[in-house]
């Protein structure tokens, strides 16, 4: 230590840490707040719709909303029904897989993660082939067996809810499962030692303990459902059954667009979701008495006897309905000349794949998506990694606020966010509107919470003193980051890269509004094909996307696994 060191610390020259921190905070704040500002501005615009910035402000757009009460009711009905179903799926499977001696538990547990990767869009496409009232496979088989009419109708509010619930069910499963895993089994054992029977224990101990967790999951899932887009787009629009997100899309995409009204809808939706997620955080942080000791317990498994095969069947059917059946349907449809016909050799064709692979638009969109996926994942990991560190480890003032800003996009449906972004970047002096750059910024922004959550969960498990020890050993901040923090965070960073990549390539809500003729991406192209060309071609495109994504992930994990083996 020298006199100059002391002098320098007295002057408080910005260190590397401070400058990087300020840069990251600046970028994140701009990404998140800038579009939200324009969204709110548009919602208050009551002047000439052709002129920007607005010539007059007022609440007229919000006052006009009650006229669209039907859309609100639709949204609530679908979201409520879907939440109830998702919670039933989630609770049942979480209980079966965590608390009973169901056979093949390990395999089932892994299978439960798959619906998340299959996506509601694929599910909606497949279920629409399965359950359309006239042509759906299930209804055709029903009629062939002698039934009459339609046994299920997927082109209905309940159909939308069903598809949404199938895919959000795995989210509920993870959330409720975490609560059940973190429950100390000795709490229940103590009840039995005190003379309570199994049923009484369940009623008085188990249920009260898991209730806050389940309630938290319910709020979270409901908020997600309010903002979900793709299932309602595929299954609702044909019959003009609109929910808020699809209505916003309609208002923006139609001619002439009704921007201010769409913005008012978006702001209202986001206000409700924000309130719900705020409430969710309160519920989660309030469950102080609940078992949260940060310790993973080996849960006590109940021997359910012969019933275990029934429970296995329940979990199996969930995976079947959400993954196996939709994928088989798409595969079948993709090799048919006419998807809704019964199998016949003459109907078989590979034309759909040929068409999908030779169409320039599709190839172009696919390669754009992959480029964006790699860029989003790479930049996103650097950005969210830095953010997580700043939030959890730095002594930067205002890091609590930073966490709120970073998690903010969680409360805004991607479509609504993209809408604000579209409006914001249209007036931006550098012309990035209609380019891939805009999509890149959009993806980076809307996936901030995903990246921060993934990396933070690993970071929080790292003993803080591992870094502090480097500090005491005399290593500078940059050196510590390079030699200690980043190597230890490696699993989290890789997982985040993968999740961001997958999420970007599959993204629909933001892309559908922000892509231009020269920045096509694949998922909106699939939706276009669904409404514009044939369902067989759509099925082929959706499968190509799935396979390419699967291959990319396989290659990535192969490379990282090999390099980690070399690294020792």
């Amino acid at each position: 230590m020298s006199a100059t060191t002391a002098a320098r610390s007295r002057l408080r020259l910005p260190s590397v840490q401070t400058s990087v921190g300020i840069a990251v905070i600046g970028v994140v704040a701009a990404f998140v707040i800038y579009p939200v500002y324009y969204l709110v501005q548009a919602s208050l615009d009551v002047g000439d719709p052709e002129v920007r910035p607005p010539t007059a402000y007022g609440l007229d757009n919000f006052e006009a909303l009650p006229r669209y009460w039907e859309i609100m009711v639709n949204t609530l009905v679908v979201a409520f029904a879907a939440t109830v179903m998702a919670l039933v799926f989630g609770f049942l499977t979480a209980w079966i897989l965590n608390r009973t001696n169901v056979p093949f538990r390990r395999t089932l547990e892994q299978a439960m993660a798959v619906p998340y990767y299959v996506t509601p869009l694929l599910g909606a496409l497949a279920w629409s082939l399965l359950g359309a009232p006239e042509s759906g496979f299930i209804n055709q088989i029903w009629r062939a067996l002698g039934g009459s009419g339609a046994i299920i109708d997927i082109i209905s509010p309940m159909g939308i809810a069903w598809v949404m619930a199938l895919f959000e069910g795995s989210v509920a499963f993870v959330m409720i499962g975490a609560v059940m895993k973190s429950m100390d089994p000795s709490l229940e054992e103590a009840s039995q030692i005190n003379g309570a029977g199994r049923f009484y224990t369940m009623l008085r101990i188990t249920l009260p303990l898991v209730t806050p967790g389940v309630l938290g999951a319910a709020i979270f899932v409901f908020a997600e459902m309010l903002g979900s887009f793709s299932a309602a787009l595929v299954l609702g629009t044909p019959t003009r059954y609109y929910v808020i997100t699809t209505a916003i899309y309609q208002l923006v995409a139609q001619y002439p667009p009704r921007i201010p009204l769409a913005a008012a809808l978006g702001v209202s939706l986001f206000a409700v979701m924000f309130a719900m997620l705020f409430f969710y955080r309160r519920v989660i942080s309030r469950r102080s008495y609940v078992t949260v000791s940060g310790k993973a317990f080996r849960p006590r498994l109940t021997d359910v006897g012969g019933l275990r095969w029934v429970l296995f069947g329940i979990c199996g059917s969930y995976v079947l309905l959400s993954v196996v059946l939709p994928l088989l349907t798409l595969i079948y449809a993709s090799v048919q000349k006419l998807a809704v016909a019964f199998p016949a050799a003459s109907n078989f064709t590979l034309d759909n794949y040929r068409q999908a692979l030779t169409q320039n638009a599709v190839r172009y969109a696919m390669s754009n998506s992959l480029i964006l996926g790699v860029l989003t994942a790479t930049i996103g990991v650097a950005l969210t990694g830095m953010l997580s560190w700043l939030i959890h480890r730095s002594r930067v003032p205002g890091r609590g606020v930073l966490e709120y800003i970073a998690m903010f996009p969680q409360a805004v449906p991607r479509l609504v966010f993209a809408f604000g972004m579209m409006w914001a970047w249209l007036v931006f002096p550098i012309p990035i509107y209609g380019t891939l750059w805009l999509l890149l910024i959009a993806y980076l922004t809307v996936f901030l919470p995903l990246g921060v959550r993934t990396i933070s969960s690993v970071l929080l498990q790292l003993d803080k003193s591992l870094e502090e020890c480097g500090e005491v050993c005399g290593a500078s901040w940059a050196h510590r980051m390079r030699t200690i923090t980043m190597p230890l965070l490696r699993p989290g960073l890789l997982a985040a890269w993968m999740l961001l990549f997958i999420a970007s390539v599959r993204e629909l809500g933001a892309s559908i509004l922000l892509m231009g003729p020269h920045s096509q991406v694949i998922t909106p192209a699939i939706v276009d094909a669904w409404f514009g060309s044939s369902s067989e071609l759509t099925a082929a495109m959706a499968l190509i996307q799935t396979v390419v994504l699967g291959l990319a992930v396989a290659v990535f994990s192969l490379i990282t696994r090999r390099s980690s083996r070399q690294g020792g």
Partner: protein
Amino acid sequence: MPSAHIEVENLEIHYGPVAAVGPVSFSVMPGQQVTLLGPSGCGKTTTLRAIAGLERPSAGTIRIGGQTVYASDGGINVPAEKRGLSMVFQSYAIWPHMTVFENVAYGLRVRRKSKAEIEEKVRTALDLVQMGAYAGRHASQLSGGQQQRVALARACAFSPNVLLFDEPLSNLDAKLRGDMRIELRELQHRLGVTSVYVTHDLEEALAMSDQIVVMRRGHIEQNGSPNEIYNYPRTAFVADFVGSANLIGGRLRPDLSKDGFVALEADGGHILHGVSHGRVPGENPVMSVRTVHLRLAAEQGDAPVNVWPVVVRRCVFLGDMTQVHVEWGGRDLVIRQTTADVWHEGDGAWLSISPDSCVLLEAE
């Protein structure tokens, strides 16, 4: 007189509106080991981390080797990596992605030492803790005790002028802890390095320190040599926390004082002679009597004061010692004796204690 190596002056640390520490002041002489002792939550670790530069104080001054590393008025706050000290963490903080060698070499590499020097110093450090054979291993392949040794070697390897210890032995089992205690003390003597040690374990503090700072609720209760702390506790808290003591309340009887001893009339009526050690008692004077200083005998003996007949209530065998409860002036007194004498409930006996071992406490 040499000047202090570490000086902490009016240090205060706040978490938001909550005061975690302070103000506290103490200093450490070169080559000495000072222990911050106290129950959990007393602010000892926070104080240590402030010295290390890992915690930002709200007020006060910290000087290390004459150099000010933190001063609230001067706006000085030298970052931890520039303070040139070293620390052993409670969790050891052995980097799991490096080998033992790389762990120990870290501080040397940061200082851009030559390859040969790194090699040599790491060897020396590892040999010092008898871990030379494990240089190529990963942290995951080490036991708790071995990790502890590596952490120690890492802390010493780059020859820091100050070593900080944050409860380094608390994660070891009792037997190993006892061995490591002695090893650490020897090592500290051999290296002659100034160190600050944090623990809540009394025996550890007594065995390892030149000076003990007893802390409670962010403040210093007493600062002195192990001998002083043990034999002349300043407050009831110290008397109770450092070893086991009987606290006897009553009123002072200046009329009965003799031979330089103060006399206390206990609430039960017995007169107890003891030392005041220059302390001013509060309104309700209390004397501390260590359980191991009390003597129980069948005969009265010939001591002029502090001898009373008592009745044995209970006798508990604890292994190394026996704990006897006796009825004394309407209350229970605890005696810990190492003798093999066996007492039975209801036995009559004579209780005695040297007045030097009865210490008048300051008011809290």
